[in-house]
């Protein structure tokens, strides 16, 4: 595999972690709930997914249980922030930090153990293509499914009644309630869906992308996912593009180093974060555009009675 093939193929699989978690966060935020616990949900699910896959040998089971674990952790957050009306930022952070600790506890006896990764799926004929074959058509099935899911979520928001219900809940929960949408149920489901995808992202990280468990292995990727949602201005296509960009930057840094680029590696390591800051700054300069895309009641608690 040449360097360029490795770079482009690796970009897609690196992007998958970011994209999965960011899509889940997108759905939660679209319903008006800012869940900052993504990093913790991913960590718990990564640990659970690894342990289950390690013991059972089944990646599928590992993913399923990891997804369930992500949902459970997200429900803890949902109960605190949606039912008990706690501040979303504070409870999200608290649940996230709790998740990091919990993941260390779960993975305690599995520290530094490894499992076999699943093989990529080579699509007949297409995978034989020069250059494009290895990049696009020999990826892990999770990579394909994630990008397909991004498309589905984008279409759901745009064209379906369900998408409309979620969006209106995020824009104005009072109006949504008046229209007869079950606001609490929608928010619970959106947060749980976010937990599910964060769980899959964690399982992907610990059983496929880097098939080993080590405490702290999520290493900030959950935070990048949260940033990606803003980066993509709550639009699925832009988030997918952003995920690929981040995958590219995080891999490009390593490749630039291996090719002897005369740029300090500390600077290269911080590139993904610098890009985030620059883009956030650029987006925020245009407040009108910002307001146009951000769910209007994002981060606000909703008590279910009375207008604002």
């Amino acid at each position: 595999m040449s360097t360029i093939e490795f770079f482009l193929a690796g970009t897609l699989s690196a992007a998958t972690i970011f994209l999965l978690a960011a899509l889940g966060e997108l759905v939660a935020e679209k319903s008006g709930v800012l869940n900052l616990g993504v990093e913790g949900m991913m960590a718990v699910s990564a640990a659970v997914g690894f342990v289950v896959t390690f013991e059972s040998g089944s990646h599928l089971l590992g993913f399923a249980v990891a997804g369930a674990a992500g949902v459970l952790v997200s429900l803890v957050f949902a109960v605190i922030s949606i039912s008990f009306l706690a501040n979303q930022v504070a409870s999200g952070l608290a649940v996230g930090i709790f998740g990091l600790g919990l993941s260390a506890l779960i993975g305690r006896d599995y520290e530094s153990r490894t499992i076999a990764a699943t093989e990529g799926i080579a699509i007949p004929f297409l995978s034989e293509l020069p250059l494009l074959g290895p990049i696009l058509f020999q990826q892990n099935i999770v990579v394909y499914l994630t990008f397909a899911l991004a498309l589905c979520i984008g279409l759901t928001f745009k064209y379906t009644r369900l998408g409309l219900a979620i969006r209106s809940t995020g824009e104005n929960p009072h109006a949504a309630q008046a229209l007869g949408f079950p606001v609490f149920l929608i928010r619970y489901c959106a947060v749980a869906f976010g937990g599910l995808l964060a769980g899959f992202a964690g399982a992907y990280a610990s059983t496929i992308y880097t098939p080993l468990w080590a405490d702290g292995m999520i290493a900030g990727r959950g935070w990048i996912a949260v940033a990606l949602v803003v980066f993509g201005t709550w639009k699925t296509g832009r988030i997918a593009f952003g995920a690929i960009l981040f995958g590219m930057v995080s891999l490009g840094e390593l490749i630039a180093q291996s090719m002897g680029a005369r740029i300090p590696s500390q600077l290269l390591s911080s590139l993904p974060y610098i890009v985030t800051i620059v883009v956030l700054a650029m987006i925020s300069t245009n407040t009108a555009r910002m307001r146009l895309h951000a769910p209007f009641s994002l981060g606000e608690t909703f008590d279910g009675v009375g207008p604002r």
Partner: protein
Amino acid sequence: MNVLSKTLAAVAVSGLLFHSTVNADTLEIGLLTPSPIADVGWSKALVDGVDAVKAKYGDKVNINIIENIQEGPDADRIMNKMVGDGNEFLVLGSFGFMNGGLKLAKRNAKRTFLHASGYKTAKNFSPFTAKYYEGAYLMGMAAAELTKTKKLGVVSAFAIPELISTINGFTLGARSIDPEITVDVIWINSWFDPAKAQDSAKALLAGGADILFSNAQDTPSVVTVGEEGGAYVFNLNGSMKEYAPTKYLGVVKTDWAPFFVASVDAHLAGNFEGKNEWLGMQDDVVVVDDWNADISAEMMAKIEAKRAEIVSAAVHVYDGPLINQEGKEVIPAGERLEDGAILGMDWHVEGVNSPLPK
């Protein structure tokens, strides 16, 4: 468990509420590690070291381990608690425990402290560091025989002297056999990011390297990539052969047992003296082991001969002539780089392609 113990420790320390009763006849030995104790890696090597003390002294010593302690204020509190609990002999397993540990040592003159990777000393406070570069030099010789592309890859944590001198030792060893060999280095600026370490290893392979060196990565991330990618791979501290059954080049192991045992001996005899302990193959602390069977008998003989020369101090890895990356001669033939220059090394030798981050 470590979360629980951390919380408990933090709670207990606030005021040193409950001291455990200490039996006067047993020596309480405390070990503080910066990462979780796994089957392999840095913290495991430290645990093996104190286990050797236990093996020698049996019931006369009691080992107390607190693992996965972040460097910083948390560590200071927990160290305080360990002293409060009656540990007379403490092993502080990370660079960042230095200042807090030194303060404690000054307040507790009768207790003995060993501290990993640091540079400050006190009468009862010894920093200890391994001369990894000696073992890496021998690994370089073996790598030189097995490489086909004449390109070696290193995944490295932080650009600190300890790691730089190890890469240089590796490069010098390889080029002592085949001067055409070059070395690519990727700095991931993290002790702990297995995903990034694996990506780096793959990038090095894609760039043409066919030997990998996992420089101070505590997880088998790079080692497993080597096995999958068909590249020989070695690492530091503890053997990871089981993660690369066919492609494991070998290990530059640190065996702290002789040093820890000698220090406990000295502590018990009352003649412990704090000094900078920089330990290598002649101290039996740096041990090369688990050589791959693909290395020829002829090369193994050469490696063994070189090892004997280094142990007897007839030869030093950093004997001149030494040429740096820019092609300038740093040390002429017949001279030897001073210890201080190795301990503070901030340059690469000729043959390392990648620039050093500065």
